[in-house]
Every structure is written in structure tokens, then in C-alpha cells.
């Protein structure tokens, strides 16, 4: 390769990596200030994000929470946002320690964030460890943690939610398939089933209602309404018309 080409190729290869490696602080500050946030407050947010990154904790959810807090500024004082960010960072640290305690040397940020969210929704450290142990990969554990937290938020007993996720992993279901559980739960509730009854069936070993055989719950459509359709399916449907 000629030197000119080699130089250009190297520059192209390094440019995005360099941009991505740039300090994210100005990015956070810029976003907040662009939305009208005071510079000092934006700097305080950036410092929290920097501290999280220095500790190896995920920063994306912190940035998102800061943007959310600023968007809701009519009801949320800026100091409250900073307190929530610090609290969230502390929960990330706890979640990371839990994940490391299961033998993961370097748990991915998605797992740490999901475990922290799960802890915030009532999952116990034992629940977190159970999901990590049952999942085939740390990334799948992150999805499992999210699903368990969502099921718990839908009213399912936390232990039953974790059991449903664990059973799915043990039955060889993929992380993506786990994401169907909250829709299944919503459908069952829509059919008049109480979350307590769903939990009982799971805890007794009957599995998530309608899911034991691997089939979708009876009477539950894959989507609701004409627009809740996977983009690929929409494409096929158009093609068939």
C-alpha cells in the first residue's frame, strides 16, 4: 500500500475511536446546557458521570437520568437530580460488587445497570445472583434481570419473577425470548388473571402460564393493533400484498 493510502486508511480507522475516547463530560454538559441547564449544575452532573466512569461503572443510565431530571425540572429541583444520580451510582457499585461476587471479573455495564434497576424494584442480592447463575452469558443475565424487574413492576411476586426467568434460561430459551414475558404477563392480566395466581403457578413448578411447552399463551396475539408489528414482518406483509 502506498504511504498516502496507508496514512488515510489509518486516519480513518483512528478518527472515530479518538472521538469516542474523548471525554464524555463535555458531551453531557453540552447536552444539558443546550437544553437551558445552568452551567454549574451541568458541570456537577458531569463530575458525577466522571466519577462513575473512573470507578468502571456504566455512565449511559446516569446521563439518561440527568436528562430526564432536567426535562422534568418543573417538578424536580436540580439538587434532587444530583442526589438521585449519586444514589444511582451507589446502587451501580452494589450491583457491580454482586456481579463480581458471582465470579464475573468484569461484568458488562448493561448487567450492572440492569441489576441496579432490579435492586431498586425489590430484588434481593440473592435474586440477582440467581439470575446471573442461570443465564448462559453476562449479557443474557442483563436481559433476564430487566425482565425479572419488569415482571415485578407488573405486580408479580419478585421470587416468582426470578423463578420465571431462571426456568426460561434452564429450558434453553434465548434472552430475546425472555423479553416476551412482560407482554405475556400483560395479556394474562388482560384476560383477568391475577398476578398472585400467576406467581403461584410459577412457584409450584408449573412454569409461566402458557409457556411451559414453549408455546405462546393461548389467546395471546403476537401483537396488539396493526402497528405493533416487527418491521421485518411489516415488510413481508407489504410484499405479499
Amino acid at each position, binding site marked *: 500500500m502506498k*504511504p498516502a493510502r496507508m496514512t*488515510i486508511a489509518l486516519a*480513518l*480507522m483512528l*478518527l*472515530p475511536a479518538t472521538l*469516542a*475516547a474523548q471525554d464524555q463530560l463535555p458531551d453531557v454538559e453540552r447536552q444539558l446546557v443546550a437544553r437551558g441547564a445552568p452551567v454549574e449544575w451541568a458541570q456537577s452532573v458531569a463530575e458525577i458521570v466522571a466519577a462513575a466512569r473512573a470507578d468502571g*461503572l*456504566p*455512565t*449511559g*443510565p446516569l*446521563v*439518561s437520568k440527568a*436528562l*430526564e*431530571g432536567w*426535562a*422534568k425540572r418543573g*417538578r*424536580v429541583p436540580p439538587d434532587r437530580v444530583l442526589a*438521585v444520580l449519586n*444514589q*444511582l451510582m451507589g446502587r451501580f457499585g452494589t450491583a457491580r460488587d454482586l456481579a463480581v461476587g458471582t465470579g464475573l471479573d468484569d461484568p*458488562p455495564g*448493561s448487567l450492572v*445497570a*440492569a441489576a441496579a434497576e432490579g435492586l431498586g424494584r425489590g430484588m434481593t442480592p440473592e435474586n440477582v445472583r440467581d439470575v446471573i447463575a442461570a443465564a448462559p452469558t453476562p*449479557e443474557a443475565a*442483563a*436481559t433476564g*434481570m*430487566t*425482565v425479572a424487574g*419488569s415482571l415485578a*413492576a*407488573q*405486580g408479580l411476586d419478585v421470587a416468582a419473577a426470578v423463578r420465571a426467568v431462571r426456568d426460561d434460561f434452564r429450558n434453553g430459551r434465548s*434472552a*430475546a425470548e425472555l*423479553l*416476551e*414475558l*412482560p*407482554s405475556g404477563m*400483560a395479556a394474562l*392480566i388482560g384476560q383477568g388473571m391475577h398476578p398472585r395466581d400467576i406467581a403461584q403457578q410459577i412457584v409450584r413448578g408449573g412454569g409461566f402460564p402458557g409457556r411451559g411447552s414453549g408455546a405462546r399463551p393461548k389467546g*395471546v*396475539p*403476537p*401483537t*396488539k393493533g396493526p*402497528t*405493533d*408489528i*416487527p*418491521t*421485518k414482518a*411489516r415488510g413481508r406483509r407489504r410484499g405479499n400484498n
Partner: protein
Amino acid sequence: MIDGSHISPDVHRLLDGEPGGSPEDRAAADRFQTALDTYGAALRLPGRDVDIAVMTAVRRRRGRARSGMFWRWLVQPQAVQLRPAMAAAAIIAALAVGIVVRQATLGGSPGVGSETPVMLVRFELAAPRAQTVSLAGSFNDWSAGEEDMVKSPATGLWTITVPLPSGEHQYMFVVDGEQWVPDPNAHAQVDDGFGQSNSVIVVGPRGVVRS
């Protein structure tokens, strides 16, 4: 100095290679030749050491000239021939590297992997008296005015369909630019940490089912 004006014509002839002459003349010619050689040797540059020194200096100068050439090449405009396909491949590879690095830096959103399918999800809110309704959530950085919903005059139902990657998303409706309203059809409502609630929806690989 050797002065050739005192040399006899016979010696000159001998020096010119002409035969003949007395032995004295030939001896004188030999002495003169020896003297000429000595003089010539004295005039010659002092040999190999100088050659080496000169060549070393020349090489050094050439090295400096090379680095100067590189610098000139670097700062001067160059005509570069590029194959568009190769350039496009390099750009795509570079972007991919950047995205991977950035993902690793930020940490992923919970429940959303790198190869997540995108689904079209419809949101709706019955707010017949509202002037504007928009959708703000974790998927659009909580930008209140970014996803404006459309009102059906007949039903008063505000709707919007947005592409969302599979995974969990938190969101709220923003009515008339200031009122934050939860979605009654969401999968769940969770504490937003600020004393209020966020609506939660989990998008699966086959879409969303609401109760």
C-alpha cells in the same frame, strides 16, 4: 620546485619515450621522473580518509533531505488515488470501531443488546382537551417536543408510532408542554426517583402486548 628549463634536450627525449641517450642522461631522466612522481603525490588529495568523511557527510545530508521530503510530502497537497469501494469499506470499518468503543465507554442500556431488532410500537393517549401531546422517554433522551403525537378529531385520541429496539423503555406523555402524564396502557409504572412514576414498556422480538 622542479624547474624543467635546465633539463637537456636529450633528457626531454628520453622522457618522451624516445630511445637513445647516454647513461648519465637516462639517470638524470629517472631522477626527474622520480621527482615528478613525488610532486604529483604531494599535490594529490590525502587519500581514503577524506573520501570516507566526504561520503559520510553526503549520506547524512541525504538522510536529512529524505526527512525533509517526507515533511514536505506531509504538508503539501497530494494527488491521491482511491478506490471508492475501498474508501467506503474503510469508513464503515472506522465507524464500527467507533461505535464499539463508544458502547464500551457508555455501558449499554438495560436489556438492550448490540443486535436488537427494532419494532414499531404504537402509543396512544386519550386527551380530548389537550392542545399538544408528545412522547418523551429513555429512547429519545427525554426530549419533550421531539415526538409529537397526532390527534384524531373524532375520538380525541392522540397517537404516535415509533421504532423502538427490543428491551425495556421508560417514558411519559407530555401534555401541553408541561404536564407529565403516565401511560395507562403501559406494562408497568415504576418510581422515577424524583417522587413521580415512569411508564414502562418491554418490547419483545415479536412486538408488544398490552393488557
